[in-house]
């Protein structure tokens, strides 16, 4: 990946969240978010800024956000990174805040992980944001190949190491896959220099403040669900390897190209009807 050769770079933000170490459960960089930051640093260098919506009183969150700022090294200048912390409490909804902030700051490219490691971890934030902002979204991105002021070319990770090249109009949101380049080390000095700026003056409609859906939920600790074992009978090493390496990929399907959007929509609706996702009468 050599995206630095791109001449103009759009204003870029990486949205980060607090990760949870799989063994100790301690807060730290989330693995995919850290990769998103890495991708952003490789793309626009020190111009990258970070964003997070959370509780500014939470000390462990602060420490964790500093860890992301610790990645601002090996760049052209030593200013230190900047992170905007959109103040909100745990009951609040992050999406309207993030959307308002992104709009207000003129950002055109957003990088983030696919799903948070704690909290709801629904993986929905990216979609909700893109929907609210009316942006494009690409998920499972492994690398950015090229970026200019109007569009970005990315490689999307597919099962079994396959890659698909996508060209996306800006502004857009990119959710980074875990196969993207590993994040650089977080260093103490840059973390110390990085600034966390508190953002409290976002203009929000009052009904958008609180996460209404969340209020009615019942919370209980997640349980690891048993995994269905795939027993592969083949004696052939290659087949066993393919079976082991395969993400659950659909076995049949078609790749449709060169369709107008009308035709594509018709095909999709027909497919969803066939799969009984849509009732025959639904439009």
């Amino acid at each position, binding site marked *: 990946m050599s995206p630095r050769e791109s001449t103009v770079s759009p204003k870029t933000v990486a949205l980060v969240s607090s990760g949870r170490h799989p063994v100790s459960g301690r807060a730290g960089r989330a693995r995919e978010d850290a990769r998103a930051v890495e991708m952003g640093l490789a793309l626009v260098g020190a111009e990258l800024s970070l964003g997070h919506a959370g509780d500014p009183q939470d000390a462990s969150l602060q420490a964790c956000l500093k860890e992301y700022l610790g990645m601002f090294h090996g760049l052209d200048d030593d200013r230190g990174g900047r992170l905007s912390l959109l103040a909100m409490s745990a009951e609040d909804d992050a999406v309207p805040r993030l959307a308002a902030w992104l709009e207000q700051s003129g950002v055109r490219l957003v990088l983030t992980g696919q799903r948070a490691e704690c909290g709801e971890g629904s993986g929905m934030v990216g979609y909700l944001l893109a929907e609210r902002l009316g942006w494009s979204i690409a998920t499972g991105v492994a690398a950015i190949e090229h970026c200019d002021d109007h569009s970005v070319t990315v490689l999307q990770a597919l099962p079994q190491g396959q890659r698909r090249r996508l060209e996306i109009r800006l502004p857009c949101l990119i959710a980074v896959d875990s196969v993207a380049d590993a994040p*650089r*080390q977080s260093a*103490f000095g840059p973390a110390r220099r990085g600034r966390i700026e508190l953002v409290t003056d976002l203009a929000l409609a009052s009904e958008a403040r609180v996460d209404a859906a969340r209020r009615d939920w019942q919370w209980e600790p997640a349980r690891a669900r048993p995994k269905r074992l795939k027993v592969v009978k083949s004696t052939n090493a290659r087949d066993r390897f393919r079976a082991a390496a395969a993400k659950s990929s659909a076995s049949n399907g078609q790749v449709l190209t060169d369709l107008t959007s009308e035709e594509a929509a018709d095909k999709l609706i027909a497919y969803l009807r066939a799969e009984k996702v849509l009732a025959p009468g639904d439009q």
Partner: protein
Amino acid sequence: MLQTLLPILIFAALALGAAGAVRRIRLWRQGQRTPMVWRRLLLMPRRYLNDLHHIVARDKAMAHTHVATAGGFVAAMALALVVHGFGWRNPILGGLLLAASAVMFVGALAVNRRRLNSPTRPFPRKLSRGPWQRLSKSLIAYSLGMFLVSLPIVGFTPGNLVGVAPTVLGGGVLAIVLAAVLVWGLLEMLVGMGWGGPMKHAFAGSFHLAFHRRPERFDDNHPDASPKKTHDVHRGSRSTALFPLDLTAKTLGVEKPADFQWEQLLGFDACVQCGRCQSVCPAYAAGQPLNPKKLIQDMVVGMAGGSDARYAGSGHPQQAGGIDVGKPGFGHHRGGPSDAIVPQLVEAQTLWACTTCRACVEECPMMIEHVDAIVDMRRFITLERGETPEKGAAAIDNLIATDNPGGLDNASRLDWAADLEIPRIQDRPEGVDVLLWLGDGAFDMRNQRTLRSLVKILRAGGVDFAVLGEEERDSGDVARRLGDEATFQRLAERNIATLSRYRFARIVTADPHSFHVLGREYGAFGGDYVVRHHSTFIAELFDGGRISVAAPAQAETVTYHDPCYLGRYNGEFAAPRQVLAALGVDVVEMERSGYRSRCCGGGGGAALSDVPGRARIPDMRMEDVRTTGATTVAVACPQCTAMLEGVVEPRPRILDLAELVAEALVEPAPAVPETSTSSPSREEEPA
């Protein structure tokens, strides 16, 4: 004619030299300053005679040579000042001056002999040529010149001299030749001393001894100073704890030469390029790109500005100027006092190759602190640049997330002892005698065997002990040596907070790294403990008659490998040998043992940075073991065990002292099953 010329020459040389010296002091003072207490210069003579000469004297021939040359020079110079400079031409003083010059001349001949290059005696690879080779000739010029010009004072007149020399030369010509030789000598000895010639070592060395950053090293009465000077010819304290780093300082660690403390720059400048450090450095021997002698010279280049083109010794292996590289010589690395050191002056691999074994520091006659400098530069790379070698960075991340470098569940620290019912200190509020510190070896299947043996011994000795269990965290050793002082200090503070909640008389550990860090380095953070390495503790159990062992069934030859962090760092050479003696096995010493032990290659995070070389350090150490013919090598450190066991078979057995003792115990503790547990451990984790 000479009589009028001489005082002029001497005083001119002195003045020129002094001007250079002032400039040199300015160069040193580019470093981070502490006030310069001139009074300290008075400490110099004693430190020279007592401490420095002690180290020089490890090489008897060189010590005599140096005494003759340096002593002759100092005496001859002082007398020449009186006799020729101030013109007090007293025959007795003249006689003394002749004697001093003669002694110096003899010394100078020995210096030259050492530097001859003949097929039978090749030029020693540790030495430098260039100006240093010139110095050996200049010494002759000075001593011979001084001798000849002083002859008239005791009655040999120029006329007599002319009678000796072929008359065709004539007195005048002879005088001119003599003056030229003397000028050469004075230029080298006095002017060169101030202006950075090889004689700089005498001037910088004197200041370095006076202003040394670790004054405890010279203090015979220091509580740490080893009382018995048997296997250990160290005099003062082994001042080996790293200096704490102020994490609020503007720059963290050393980026450019001016970031060093000024005493450190002064120390680098004192180097005599004797190459003793080079010949003991395990990384250099393994062909990794580190030569401690060259590294110190690189620092001098950085301090004074310029390139390494004038360096005339062995370089860093694998790099321009290195012995095994076809590349042209030096001159590719440049530096200046305010220029970043890495990578223009020193390549990062050079710094990561160091195992922090301190062999170089131990051997350096100028008492230069290589390890401090290396760790200072690593601190900058890790804390500011975030460029720790990959596996090192992963270990640090794990330490931050899980308190152990393997990223394992800290609660599994005691899994290996599931069947041993080891008491937890949490259940002993009244306190215990011994807190057993497990170290990260507790996650390693191999080391779990050692720990089980140690528990067996403690039980046999009726020791009242307990463990912290999952409350124990990594001591922070690896993080600190990799330059991550922030993580080290965090671990240290948490461990100290934990320890402050419990009562125990002392800590015993089978890990020399924990032993060193807990015992020597936690003090700076408010943790003062009595810490014993298990070898010391077992030796005490033997002494107190609390355990007894059966004589070995069949005769066995054992050799003992001194771990750096137990021996050189903490001066414990005797106890492990006492334990072996108590076991009644035949002990053969390796050529490099005691304070000269060769590192296993596992210290200082070197096993993580894993800088490629021509050979592997543990293989070289195993060769040392094989040479003795021993069938077993006794070790006393989990890291050494792991490194040496990594050597391919067939090779001698590797057993920890605790294992050897536990095997031979006659009253084995009840209820310690011998079978190994199936606890989760590092080896079973996916990589």
